[in-house]
């Protein structure tokens, strides 16, 4: 047994509430799962009462429904509709503004965030996604860096994968192994649930010390282990095989791209919900007087025509070319650029695609009928 295993503790729902209180007292903005508009969304939490207690998510290609569980689990669902991406890499943000007077032009950067952020209920796939975005943005983007500066992560191991999850085949989950301060495994065999807790950082240890906890029993640790094993064996989907990059590179003219382009709406839902997609466009505007100028940035997507616009037109005028860009970037060129896959197997692009296009199924089709 590892030393981390030896240091497993248990807290109950009251202890969990105290953890949130402890974070609040330290000036953290607390963000985590809550039920909003018929889905589990990540939003501000006032306390454990805002968590999706007794709810779960039913997910399939192009389909999502909240369902009642027959217990009072706080984290008995797979993943939220949106990822935590929006808290570090927001959909829209002001970059600078300027004032033009007859003789002068004064520009001023928008201030960077100084808000401490605590994320509650972060899954293994999300932690991997945050690490991937760090790789892409941390060095390049001061606004992102400022938002990432003071973050406390309360991870929760996933024991309820959905029908579109495949983190196991992306080696991204379901067990959280890095990138957290505190990790919990919710034991639903007790009702109300209790949580097996491990800490990984000094801040995490400090938090645990401040709240009521006790040592985990052998049985509790075994139940936690088996819940994770169950999750790994109950992934709704699987990304087929290894060596995706050469497979994709061999099949750039495969007829399957035409078939998927007939279904694809070029709506960009997949890139918006993907926790790793990072593309943005920059917009410059002026007001009616022509004196107030501003530059802002918003999410863009390789599914829009403007995305690949260069002098004279779009490089990817067809939906076929755009879908191929999206999938080959995720699975083939991303590893070359950033040393990891661009996909963590969260399944959001499958669930939230209005026509239910499934990245694992598309890849399998390319592989089954591949140009040698």
């Amino acid at each position: 047994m590892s030393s981390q295993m030896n240091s497993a503790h248990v807290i109950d729902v009251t202890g969990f509430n105290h953890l949130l209180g402890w974070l609040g007292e330290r000036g953290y903005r607390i963000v985590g799962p809550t039920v909003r508009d018929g889905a589990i969304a990540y939003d501000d939490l006032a306390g454990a009462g805002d968590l999706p207690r007794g709810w779960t998510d039913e997910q399939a290609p192009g389909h999502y429904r909240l369902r009642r569980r027959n217990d009072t689990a706080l984290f008995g669902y797979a993943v939220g509709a949106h990822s935590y991406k929006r808290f570090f890499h927001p959909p829209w943000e002001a970059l600078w503004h300027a004032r033009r007077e007859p003789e002068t032009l004064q520009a001023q950067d928008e201030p960077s965030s100084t808000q401490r952020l605590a994320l509650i209920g972060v899954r293994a796939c999300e932690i991997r996604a945050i690490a991937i975005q760090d790789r892409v943005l941390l060095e390049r983007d001061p606004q992102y860096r400022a938002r990432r500066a003071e973050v406390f992560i309360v991870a929760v191991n996933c024991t309820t994968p959905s029908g579109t999850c495949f983190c196991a085949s992306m080696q991204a989950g379901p067990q959280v192994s890095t990138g957290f301060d505190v990790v919990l495994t919710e034991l639903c065999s007790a009702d109300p649930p209790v949580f097996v807790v491990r800490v990984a950082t000094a801040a995490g240890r400090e938090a645990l010390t401040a709240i009521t906890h006790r040592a985990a029993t052998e049985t509790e640790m075994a139940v936690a282990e088996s819940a994770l094993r169950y999750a790994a064996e109950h992934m709704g989907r699987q990304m087929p095989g290894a060596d995706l990059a050469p497979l994709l590179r061999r099949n750039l003219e495969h007829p399957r791209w035409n078939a998927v382009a007939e279904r694809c709406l070029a709506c960009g839902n997949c890139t918006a919900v993907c926790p790793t997609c990072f593309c943005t466009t920059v917009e410059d505007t002026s007001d009616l007087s022509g004196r107030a100028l501003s530059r802002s940035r918003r999410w863009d997507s390789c599914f829009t025509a403007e995305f690949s616009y260069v002098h004279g037109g779009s490089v990817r005028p067809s939906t076929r070319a755009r879908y191929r860009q999206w999938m080959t970037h995720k699975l083939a060129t991303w590893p070359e650029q950033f040393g990891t896959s661009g996909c963590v197997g969260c399944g959001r692009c499958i669930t939230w695609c209005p026509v239910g296009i499934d990245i694992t199924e598309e890849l399998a089709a390319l592989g089954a009928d591949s140009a040698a």
Partner: protein
Amino acid sequence: MDPGRRKPRLAVWKFASCDGCQLSLLECEPDLLALAAALDVAFFPEVSDRPIRGRYELSLVEGSISTPEDAERIRAVRRRSRHLVTLGACATAGGIQALRNFAAIREFTAAVYAQPAYIGTLGTSTPIATHVAVDFELRGCPVNPRQLQEVLSALLAGRPPVVPRHSLCSECKSLGHTCVLVAGGQACLGPVTQAGCGAICPAYRRGCYGCFGPQQSANPVSLSGTLTALGLNRQDLLRLYRTFNAAAPVFRAESERHAQ
């Protein structure tokens, strides 16, 4: 702007429409003074009854062409205008009144008027761009006041307006709404509709009905497949695509597929 220079003259023209788009200009409320400072509003039937003749740097045109007189008048407007921008679904796609394009106009006039012979109207309602060159088409039913202000600011600065032509979904997701189609099983035209409204309908948990017209890469055939699986029949689909932008080519072709 150079204080010595005359302010550019703005004219607002109305054709077959409901006035909602012109009123969007008044909705730019906090900035009406800035507007008046930047532009000389020369003809604005909603706020002034003193039409000024002459030439205009910018004409905003609301409404579609549905009578022979209007077809003449829009040519005169174009001749007087340096820039011509159309406002809204009527001016850009023919509006709800373009439902006449799918039927025989005589049957409508006979049903509505006691003396249909006195009614001078065309058999179709067509967008302004069918008749004259248009510099920019602003979508919506009605247009979004913020987008309108952006188009005016851009024209004054001589830069392209920031008015994206991608799907409503991008805007809806950016705002953090839950998808009403995927999570609610509702008919939503968001994936085939252009952004710009602020995703108002999904914000109130109902499907988009397409008042900003088709997005740049719309694929309604595929969306209709999904909507059929959700339980819509051919009549439902026909009606879904036949509202304010019924005559926009992409929506028209799709509704006609469900009419046969």
